[in-house]
């Protein structure tokens, strides 16, 4: 397990060198995107920003408008598994190099990570204030018609801490823990 400080946009070789268990601190641009955004892209609308090399952050922040700029009041990760049907397509079609979320994702995304060179980065669910501290600026927003939590927020982050839980080598911490915990609970089953 290693520690990395990476700045977006990321290149494929760097992303492919990451392994499950590595700690990665991200700096630079992050775009938020969750259910409605992924669904809209899936149904044929092009994203309003160039996602190549970027990371999509599964997050519906609390944003408050102060004058002509936005202030991020809270911004932890949302459950990623809801994007399982769509995420691999965004990797294939728009060249994202990773997603930040929580709870992990399934086999389609894991295959996508290996095929297109991407990683799943786990943030700490519920830690909305710690995450908000790593967000230094809100530089813009697209697709506000989807509602504030579902919009694409353009965040600028510094040292946003994550843990690689799915890598580009086909390894998923979530899959491993599920199998291990299933076996342990089976051994503890009441009869």
């Amino acid at each position, binding site marked *: 397990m290693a520690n990395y400080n990476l700045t977006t946009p990321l290149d494929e070789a760097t992303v492919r060198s990451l392994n499950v*268990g590595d*700690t990665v601190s991200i700096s630079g641009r992050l775009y938020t995107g969750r259910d*409605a955004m992924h669904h809209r892209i899936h149904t044929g609308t092009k994203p309003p920003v160039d996602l190549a090399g970027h990371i999509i952050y599964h*997050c*519906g*922040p*609390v944003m*408050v408008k102060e004058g002509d700029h936005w202030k991020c*009041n*809270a*911004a*932890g990760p*949302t*459950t990623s*598994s809801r994007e399982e049907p769509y995420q691999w397509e965004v990797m294939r079609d728009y060249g994202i190099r990773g997603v930040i979320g*929580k*709870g*992990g994702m399934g086999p389609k995304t894991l295959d996508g990570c290996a095929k297109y060179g991407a990683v799943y980065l*786990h943030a*700490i*669910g*519920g*830690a*909305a*204030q*710690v995450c*908000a*501290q790593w967000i230094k600026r809100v530089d813009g927003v697209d697709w506000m018609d*989807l*509602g*504030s*939590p*579902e919009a694409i927020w353009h965040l600028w982050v510094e040292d946003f*801490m994550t*843990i690689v*839980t799915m890598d580009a080598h086909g390894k998923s*911490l*979530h899959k491993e*823990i*599920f199998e*291990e*915990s*299933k076996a*342990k*609970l089976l051994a*503890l*089953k*009441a*009869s």
Partner: protein
Amino acid sequence: MSATAQQAEQKAVDPALFETVLELIRRTSTILPDDVVRAIETAHATEEKGSNADVALNIIGCNIGLAKDKSAPICQDTGTILFYIHTPVGYDQLALEEAATEAVREATRIGYLRQNSVDSLTGKNSGDNTGPGSPVFHFHQWRKPHVEIKVMLKGGGCENMNAQYSLPHPDLGGRDLAGVENAILDCVLQAQGQGCGPGILGVCIGGDRGTSYAFAKEQLLRLLDDTNTDPVLGDLEKRIVDKANRSGIGPMGFGGKTTLLACKIGVANRLPASFFVSIAYMCWAYRRRGVEIDAASGAAVGWLY
């Protein structure tokens, strides 16, 4: 009178009630209850230093402190806003509902709450957390002279991990405590880290499908360190926590010793034909608080949790 109270008066709701509920929402969204903080700290001490579980609980600890200091939401996901209200006989519940709804709007405008109420057909966000079914009000009368309001914010991530089992079940067992235990632990297995564990379970054995879920959620109003009045259920609660914490799922599903902080189980009568076990999975960001209100003035006389 404060600016917000003046605003409430303009909207023709009771200004004192409005202010009390607004403060209740602020506290609930930004300050995690002591019993929850203690349980997280106790759990943290058991995790191996430097492990992913340790890292997760460290960040969670920092987050709890930051939210309190900044008076900002612990979690960005406001979740479902659930009010559990007791009022004296003859008290105007409608006026309280109107004041509380207005307080929810104001708390959303300030940013204590995220805009979290979406039209299920059109996908349109109402922008102020109100609309059909939101917020949720559970009213009960009681014979005490004061009003009690408890509020719980239950995030969508953990709400999605709730589960309901109908026993007998081919893999989990029959209509007995073993079947119940296996059903609850199956819920823990399926949830993994997706409900923002370490989690807290509210469970109902019995009821119909609807009342069973509602009753399961109400178990989450109990204090984490209380003891079940029924020793059979008390033992079951301990067994569930012990086994879940031996599963190795750990905080955030990263692996580790703490999968559950607590399990609270209640029973409701069932039909002869039905046997439901309903589990409400609550995340570590277990936001619930309460207030006792003077019925005549609408002012807070005591804070709960």
